[in-house]
């Protein structure tokens, strides 16, 4: 390679590396702000802002969904399998909302530590499969839970 081209290549390499490092530093500095939501553990630890709205994300805890008598308000717990936060929302929930589903709610904590949501979004995972496959996976899982493998008890 002739020296001029080598010099150009080095300059471009330095430029891209420099921009890469600068971006990395900037994104690191903004890390907190780039998080779309807080997990229930973070909210319980008090990492979430208290005075202004934020988003909380996690799974809807099984058997926690309760409809209020007014017919529009729903109360449920959002969990990350470590901590749980109670959420109350008045309005229409997205189609994917169900127990065990991942959701992201926007709102604010009230004095009782209940999260009053103004918006609830459903989050779905990266798995795609036909209903029959999901059904057989679930059956296999339930059977495995009901009848633990004998090896496990021997050890």
């Amino acid at each position, binding site marked *: 390679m002739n020296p001029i081209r080598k010099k150009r290549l080095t300059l471009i390499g330095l430029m*891209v590396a420099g921009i890469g490092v600068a971006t990395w530093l900037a994104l690191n500095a903004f890390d907190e702000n780039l998080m779309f939501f807080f997990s229930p553990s973070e909210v319980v630890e008090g990492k979430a802002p208290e005075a202004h709205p934020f988003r909380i994300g996690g799974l809807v805890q099984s058997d926690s969904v309760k409809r209020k008598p007014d017919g529009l308000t729903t109360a449920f717990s959002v969990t990350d399998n470590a901590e749980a936060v109670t959420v109350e929302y008045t309005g229409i929930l997205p189609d994917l909302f169900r127990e065990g589903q991942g959701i992201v709610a926007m709102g604010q904590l009230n004095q009782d530590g209940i999260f009053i949501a103004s918006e609830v979004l459903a989050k779905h995972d990266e798995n*795609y499969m036909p209903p029959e496959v999901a059904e057989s996976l679930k059956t296999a899982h339930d059977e495995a839970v009901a009848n633990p493998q004998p090896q496990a008890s021997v050890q």
Partner: protein
Amino acid sequence: MIIRFFHQMGSPRYFYNVAGKLVPWFMVSFLITLVFGLYYGLFVAPPDYQQGESYRIMYIHVPSAWMSMFIYVVMAVSGLISLVWRIKMTEIVVISSAAVGASFTFLALATGSLWGKPMWGTWWVWDARLTSELILLFLYLGIIALHSAIEDKRVAARAVSILALVGVVNIPIIHYSVEWWNTLHQPASVTKFDKPSMDISMLIPLLTMAISFKLYYGAVVLMRARAEIVERERNSRWVQEMVEQEAK
């Protein structure tokens, strides 16, 4: 032999002729894979266990999003070659790709929005994945604008190549945004070093659509490059001879 082929492809006249022969092949194979992929994806593939029929928009959304990043990487690599080796043809590839890339980025954002409304419950959120993809659209538009703002084509190509290389840091950010930060967008199903989290009956049409979109890009970039060559070389003898021949 391969090296000789690349050397010849560096000559606009040779490229023009080879590209002219390739375009119909790209177009035909694009149409075949498109029909197969769309039919398989929309009618044969089973519904999803969670999202039902709505997930089928994935067959446009995901290949478009892949293309938006793939084309950008092609542009950045061609930009690098243009800057270091000053090859005319790679300059032409950079600018001929920009509009196709911008269209795919727009398509990915628009179909994502249509998918987000029924599934997530919102058209748009400012999470890291969606925002970085929007920045990619602005990068494409910036490249197109910068190119048309500079009269001299070779100076314009150099400016555009630098911009393409500056923007390339955004590509890993788009890809890893769903892993580095909490996002509403789900993590990757296919593009990871792991078994795809997708049933094979859904994966086949998805990959077919990805190939189909790549062929479309191939056809369009060759056509646009040919037009660009004729415009740039309009004062050269071979173009004038060709035009005279056509006129007869």
